[in-house]
């Protein structure tokens, strides 16, 4: 089995899985019906993308593992998503700030992944980027709406941005699988996306009358499977059915 490619695919897919799970958990809890539907549609897009990645990963694994096994039956340390996507919905400003900080990265990442020499990955990227451009538009609008809204909404959005900022640097860390895949022309060199990312994010924050955090203190670990305390709770819910009723289907 191509170990590096397998891990590389999981690294991409797990971000979308965990963020999709976070957004899906808002079903019935969105601040308005339209926003609720938007959040769950974003979740659905992410899960759709995840299926394509895990199906491919299952093929690479070449054993009896299915896409569902990969999604549902790993231990916490085996999930390779960045810490950003697992952060909780403290309030709606956090939900949108998390989405926005990931969407800007996601769009830049997929733009590059489209050029991958791996035709499956480039096809998934080509398909997903159209959806992600809508996500980015949606979350950016909320940054502006809350940032440039009332005193209260501005304060809350600034707090969310300041707090989540600490998880942004990890997006640009290269893993060993990354390095191996870059050398084969398959992977994206995420370190090269950093400048464009902070430029785009800063532009939108400024447009939203928000301050760009100056903190240089960053958290990392997710890409190595070392997660924040929130991850266990997410997995407990995500994996509940498969753990309670192993191999169940519907």
């Amino acid at each position, binding site marked *: 089995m191509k170990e590096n490619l397998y891990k590389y695919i999981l690294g991409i897919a797990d971000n979308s899985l965990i963020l999709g799970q976070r957004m899906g958990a808002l079903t019935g809890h969105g601040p308005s019906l*339209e926003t609720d539907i938007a959040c769950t549609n974003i979740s*659905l897009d992410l899960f*759709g*993308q995840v299926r394509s990645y895990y199906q491919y990963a299952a093929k690479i694994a070449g054993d009896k593992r299915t896409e569902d096994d990969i999604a549902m039956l790993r231990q916490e340390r085996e999930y390779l998503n960045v810490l950003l996507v697992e952060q909780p919905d403290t309030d709606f400003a956090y939900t949108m700030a998390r989405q926005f900080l990931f969407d800007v990265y996601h769009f830049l990442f997929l733009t590059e992944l489209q050029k991958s020499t791996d035709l499956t990955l480039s096809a*998934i990227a080509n398909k997903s980027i159209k959806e992600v451009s809508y996500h980015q538009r*949606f979350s950016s609008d909320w940054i502006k709406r809350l940032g440039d809204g009332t005193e209260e909404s501005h304060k809350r959005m600034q707090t969310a941005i300041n707090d989540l900022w600490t998880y942004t640097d990890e997006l640009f860390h290269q893993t060993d699988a990354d390095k191996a895949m870059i050398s084969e022309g398959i992977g994206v060199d995420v370190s090269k996306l950093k400048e464009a990312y902070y430029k785009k994010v800063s532009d939108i924050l400024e447009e939203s009358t928000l301050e760009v955090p100056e903190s240089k203190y960053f958290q990392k670990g997710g890409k190595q499977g070392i997660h924040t305390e929130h991850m266990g709770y997410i997995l407990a819910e995500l994996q509940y059915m498969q753990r309670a009723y192993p191999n169940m289907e519907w």
Partner: protein
Amino acid sequence: MIEAEQNIDVKLIAILEKVSDPEIPVLSIMDMGVVRSAFIENGVVKVQITPTYSGCPAMDVIGDDIKAALKLAGFESEVELILAPAWTTDWITPRGRKALEDYGIAAPLGEEADKDVLLHGKRLVKCPQCGSTNTKMISQFGSTACKAQFQCNDCQEPFDYFKCLK
């Protein structure tokens, strides 16, 4: 880039046209543009379909419906889901667009007009009920991932707009 050519055996067109999109029953999957190829190989029909959106839950049903329709016509078949080239709203046929409008869903505008509408709030989307373009967007995401929610300022009817995907 892979060329977006459709390769469908003429003998199969009428059969596949009877299969409809489970979420928009008036629309045939052929008019939707999701069938990318269909041909007979050693007596078995091989069909390739492509999803509108990645998370489209209708794809599994569409696959099953295609097999059932072909079986009824006396064919065994295999259905494969392909991702490249990615589906675009340009592949909806003129007949498909008409079916959408008749069903109460505004058909996608072109890419530029779509941006004007979704980003700049321009009033270009035509209300499928009364034909007025005095309409406003309520939400970028509608009842399914492929649609946005609109409302007509003249007749007040809410309706779905099929978002442009390119």
